[in-house]
């Protein structure tokens, strides 16, 4: 499953030809030239894996069952929301974390790793915003561990402001985007 996902993600990466030279193209002797980048081809070479031929029908069926189980479990989890510029889990969010911990500790979910994705609102676009998202993920991870979820099952990532669930520019929307959410990984 991971391999398929990675292959797909790698295949989706396209590097186009770059701007190889700047000054040589503006010159007096008319000798300037553009070096054509071969990045497209090279990245294609790196990702030259045909994921479709790697798996039998049986494996496909098993994967479908796993994906279905993950989707079902993920749909039961709830997002954890944060105050503006804060990364402490609010008191009203503690029951949400507790419920999520129960789901992650359930028999169906025990085999899966948990990815906590931290997110921030659109206010600020740089490293601090990504760090804020990560601190939110860390706070949630610590709370989950305190609720009995094994720490080694949990990985964290910050998407900063890059993954808004609401794209309007107002108070309600920003509050919805300051969140941590969960993905299960086989």
């Amino acid at each position, binding site marked *: 499953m991971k391999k398929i996902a990675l292959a797909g993600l790698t295949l989706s990466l396209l590097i186009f030809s770059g701007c190889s030279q700047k000054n040589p193209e*503006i010159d*007096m002797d008319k000798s300037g030239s553009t070096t054509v*980048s071969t990045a497209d081809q090279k990245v294609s070479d790196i990702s030259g894996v045909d994921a479709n031929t790697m798996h039998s029908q049986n494996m496909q069926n098993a994967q479908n069952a796993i994906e279905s189980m993950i989707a079902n479990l993920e749909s039961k989890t709830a997002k954890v929301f944060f105050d503006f510029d804060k990364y402490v889990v609010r008191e009203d969010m503690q029951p949400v974390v507790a419920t999520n911990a129960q789901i992650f500790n359930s028999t169906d979910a025990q085999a899966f790793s948990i990815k906590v994705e931290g997110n921030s609102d659109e206010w600020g676009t*740089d490293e601090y915003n*990504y*760090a804020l998202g990560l*601190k939110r993920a860390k706070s949630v991870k610590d709370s989950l561990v305190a609720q009995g979820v094994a720490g080694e099952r949990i990985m964290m990532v910050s998407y900063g402001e890059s993954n808004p669930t609401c794209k309007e520019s107002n108070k309600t929307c*920003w509050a919805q985007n300051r969140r941590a959410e969960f993905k299960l990984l086989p």
Partner: protein
Amino acid sequence: MIKKFIMLFVLTCSLVAYDSTVEIVKRMDRLPKIIFQDASSENMQQGFLQKFHKIIAGDLRVSSHFLVDDTYFKSSFDGNLQENFMSETKSDLILRYQLSFQEDENILAKIKLINAKNGQTDFYKIYQISDTQRYPFLAHKIAVDINAYIGAPDIKWMEQFVIFAKYTDAKQSEIVISDYTLSFQKTVLKGGLNIFPKWANKNQDAFYYTSYNGAKPTLFKVYLSSGKRERVYASDGMIVCSDVSKDGNKLLVTMAPQGQTDIFLYDLTSKKMQKLTQYQGIDVGANFIDDDSRIVFVSDRLGYPNIFAKTIGDSSLEQMVYHGKNNNSLSAIENYIVYSSREKESEFGSGTFNLYLISTQTDFIRQLTASGVNLYPRFADDKETILYIKYLKDQSALGVIRLNANKSYHFPLKVGKIQSIDW
């Protein structure tokens, strides 16, 4: 006559250049007035000629070293009595250019700088550019040369490539190379979430960026001429290349292997990663200062993001800014630091982020923007020009601040939202 006011202008510039944190209210008596004459063939596309005129006029205006008359004049290239003086415009200089398309899509540009007081050609040059799409760089190159000819302070920063990431959708972004006006744009990387591009060296022939398309956020280096991509380092949580040393051999990296964002120094030669800060909160955005012996960075160790500095290898910290309660991004060059500061603690206030300039050598603080959302400042090599992102309602724009002239200019991005920039 022209020489006299040019000398006065240069002298004035040199007198005020010693401290950029001191705001210059009146800095020069008179700028040379320049007009433009297009001597290109009528067969050339008028739309293209208009765009070229707009860019070169804009360049000289942004230089802040000319009084620019935007009027679009047509002329012959050889000129005549009327064309060489243009006395009704009361101009000092005439920039006459003739553009023509050559075979293989080359553009040939012949230019003359004419002293409008005596009708004599002071400066003549021929340029060629091999890719029509890069005509903005042709205009920038001409502007740099004209500016140098009159002896004004260097504006070579106009020739630098800007690299930026822009969001196109949720968890989707592209990395784009452009000129400083965004007139030229070339997407060099797309597919998935690829952010925080950073030039790898002054030659701008390679760049670092963070990819979110694998199991862990991963720092890659891409060589533009070959398209070769190298994995540099990966970390759980996040990884960003914040700055590159002058020699290009060391990186300041924000990383969070245990979920805590700290600042690390990565030696590209020895492949060793050295942890420079250790704090349970947020440390991010480090820049080299003082000949790469110290770093300045953003930390929330006071309970809000603020600017701190430390010597590499020393554990003690120095608070650099005593103003504002949310100073969350910065750029540094030698002794100068520019940072963005949220003016109100609530996100609901208007006029939220402004840019400020400080010096490590003085206590002065200079406000650079007055309103709006102004973030992600980046110094040019000349220390007098700052590029930054300005967020408008549904758009973002590149902003350029010319410190000595106390002026700023905006170049809007029509599609997408800029995530980060470097130049």
